[in-house]
């Protein structure tokens, strides 16, 4: 890739030819058959169409699978040049985005659990709850008939979770986009359709209004080309006509197949936690000392820092750093940077409190004795107070490290490819939610147990 990875091309240059350009395209994480991961590779109808058009028109794409809402937020923040995410073209969206020609004619269909004999049509939904995907055509349609048939619509974020809640009985039916549903059923998601497809909107590729016109034109051009040469139909058939090709086998097969992707996720989880915790320790030491300093300004700074990051949710900062900061500053913030900022500032606030408490728990006579020997404040702290404080702090620090490791899973919301995110990618493609989550849970558990053992060993070794 010739361009700096991560810099959207629209910001790098304003040429109107797409030849040789690299565009950053945002997409959903979990919208099979349009985009999903298979053996770690992002694939699906959207991906195949996008890559075929890019090849045809001679430009490069860097795809970021962020999640539907996150991809749109990233588009608004100019972190991506365009979004292809099985997105319906609506009037509302047309006010903020420019859409390509429709590349897929969708529709809405209802599905119920396979063994459900009670629901045979919309009339049987009276007094029941159904689920639909937030912001989708399915949701709009379900809501439009909800009053007429007397049912309640609950909105969820992912197809896989919707199917699970129907199977688990917390909703009796799901309204979802026809292709997704058809693909899921063929994958053995345990649902069946009992009503006909309602013809609905069409999907389009979106760019910010008035921007990236060359890219949009190239997309339309390439799409027409694909339709003309039959490539387009081949792509659709690949996913909708024979969707069973990739069905994994038993639990063990699932574990083996998903292992490489999950290990990548674990690596990212451990990496982001380690870097963030190292920074958090430094921040915590600085602000912990500020907190006990005689200087009222330093104390004020430390108290403000601690209160801000202890008093606000971690997720809010993840969104703020990833979506908000680029818009405010124009900087390009990678998902790693945003993730590390979020985790390290949050953990730093807690570590500052741990450091303050640890130092204050050391008998003041210790500092006095060291000072009376002629050691300076810094030396006295370093040689006498901190070693004793550290010993008392260690259990709390280990605890905070583990909390940070678990908290890192929240970064999936900004598309950081950590362990749970990888799990989501897997069940979004195969609909085996429970089993996949079980595997992810076991990996977290083993990793955290190993880390705890290691930390306790180090504690015994160095703090005897």
């Amino acid at each position, binding site marked *: 890739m010739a361009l700096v990875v991560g810099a959207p091309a629209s910001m790098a240059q304003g040429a109107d030819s797409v030849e040789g350009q690299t565009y950053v395209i945002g997409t959903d994480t979990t919208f099979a058959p349009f985009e999903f991961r298979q053996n770690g590779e992002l694939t699906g109808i959207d991906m195949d169409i996008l890559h075929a058009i890019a090849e045809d028109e001679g430009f490069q794409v860097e795809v970021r699978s962020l999640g539907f809402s996150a991809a749109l937020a990233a588009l608004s923040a100019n972190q991506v040049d365009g979004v292809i995410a099985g997105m319906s073209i609506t009037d509302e969206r047309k006010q903020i985005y420019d859409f390509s020609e429709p590349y897929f004619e969708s529709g809405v269909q209802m599905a119920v659990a396979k063994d459900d004999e009670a629901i045979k049509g919309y009339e049987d939904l009276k007094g029941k709850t159904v689920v639909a995907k937030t912001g989708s055509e399915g949701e709009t349609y379900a809501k439009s008939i909800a009053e007429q048939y007397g049912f309640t619509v609950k909105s969820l974020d992912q197809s896989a979770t919707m199917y699970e809640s129907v199977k688990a009985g917390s909703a009796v039916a799901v309204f979802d986009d026809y292709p997704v549903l058809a693909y899921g059923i063929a994958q053995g998601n345990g649902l069946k359709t009992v009503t006909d497809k309602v013809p609905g909107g069409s999907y389009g590729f979106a760019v910010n209004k008035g921007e990236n016109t060359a890219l949009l034109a190239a997309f339309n051009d390439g799409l027409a080309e694909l339709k003309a040469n039959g490539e387009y139909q081949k792509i659709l058939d690949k996913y909708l006509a024979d969707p069973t090709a990739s069905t994994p086998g038993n639990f063990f097969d699932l574990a083996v197949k998903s292992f490489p992707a999950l290990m990548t996720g674990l690596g990212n989880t451990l990496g982001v936690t380690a870097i963030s915790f190292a920074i958090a320790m430094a921040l915590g030491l600085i602000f912990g000392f500020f907190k006990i300093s005689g200087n009222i300004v330093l104390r004020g700074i430390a108290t403000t820092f601690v209160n801000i990051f202890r008093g606000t949710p971690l997720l809010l900062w993840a969104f703020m750093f990833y979506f908000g900061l680029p818009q405010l500053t124009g900087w390009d913030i990678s998902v790693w940077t945003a993730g590390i900022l979020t985790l390290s500032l949050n953990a730093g606030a807690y570590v500052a409190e741990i450091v303050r408490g640890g130092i204050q728990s050391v*008998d003041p*006579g*210790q500092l*006095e*004795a*060291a*000072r*009376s*020997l*002629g*050691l*300076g404040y810094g*030396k006295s702290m370093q*040689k*006498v107070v901190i*070693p*004793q404080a550290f*010993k008392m702090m260690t259990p709390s620090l280990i605890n905070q490290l583990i909390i940070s490791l678990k908290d890192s899973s929240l970064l999936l919301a900004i598309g950081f490819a950590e362990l749970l995110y990888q799990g989501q990618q897997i069940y979004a493609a195969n609909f085996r939610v429970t089993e996949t989550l079980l595997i992810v849970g076991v990996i977290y558990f083993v990793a955290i147990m190993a880390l705890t053992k290691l930390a306790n060993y180090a504690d015994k070794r160095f703090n005897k």
Partner: protein
Amino acid sequence: MSTASEMNSQVKIQVTDLHKSFGSNNVLQGIDLEIREGEVLCVIGPSGSGKSTLLRCLNKLEDITSGTVVVDGFDVTDPKVDINEVRRHVGMVFQHFNLFPHMSVAENIMLAPVELKKMNRTEARAKALELLERVGLKEKADARPASLSGGQKQRVAIARALAMSPGIMLFDEATSALDPEMVGEVLQVIKELADSGMTMVLVTHEMGFAREVADRVVFMADGVVCEQGKPEDLFGNPQQARTQDFLSKVL
């Protein structure tokens, strides 16, 4: 009042009109005091009269509100004076020992000489062993403070205070936290130190000991020096009513 030998020796500590207050609590209300080289000064007085505060002002563990304290020619109230340098000449022994629990006995003693780059570790350890021998605890060099008795801890603390070879030693009720049977061993070490010619200021409740080792006794009450003199005079023939009253209660 001064003997010929005191007249000849040089002034080690000069306290002039020392005031110290904690908020609105005026703890020291104008102390004037002169301590000469080799002198052993005992400070006695009722609880809360400001004895500890006075002692802690001598090495500036407390900030001084007003007045001057000159130690070895350094005015400790002068911000330009390196207080750490002054403290190296002044050893201090605390009521509660304040040994460093995460270090061995020898490391406690070696800390200052090594960190202040006065000695390398080998020299510092040799010095530590020599000091421990002096307080009768050579065999405890590698023990942890937690494994020692109170009397042993205080003897280690004395050895630690001596590590930088100070010219002055300050003791703040060095035996009050000890079980009675351990008081003697610590007083013995302090007495040997006094006999060796060390300049010392001792805050103590041990009147018998004060009488035995002191060259001069200072009686403090309510933040001022109420009366001072040779032990036989102060204990035998106190002039002030407050002194008489105090002594009648403690003797």
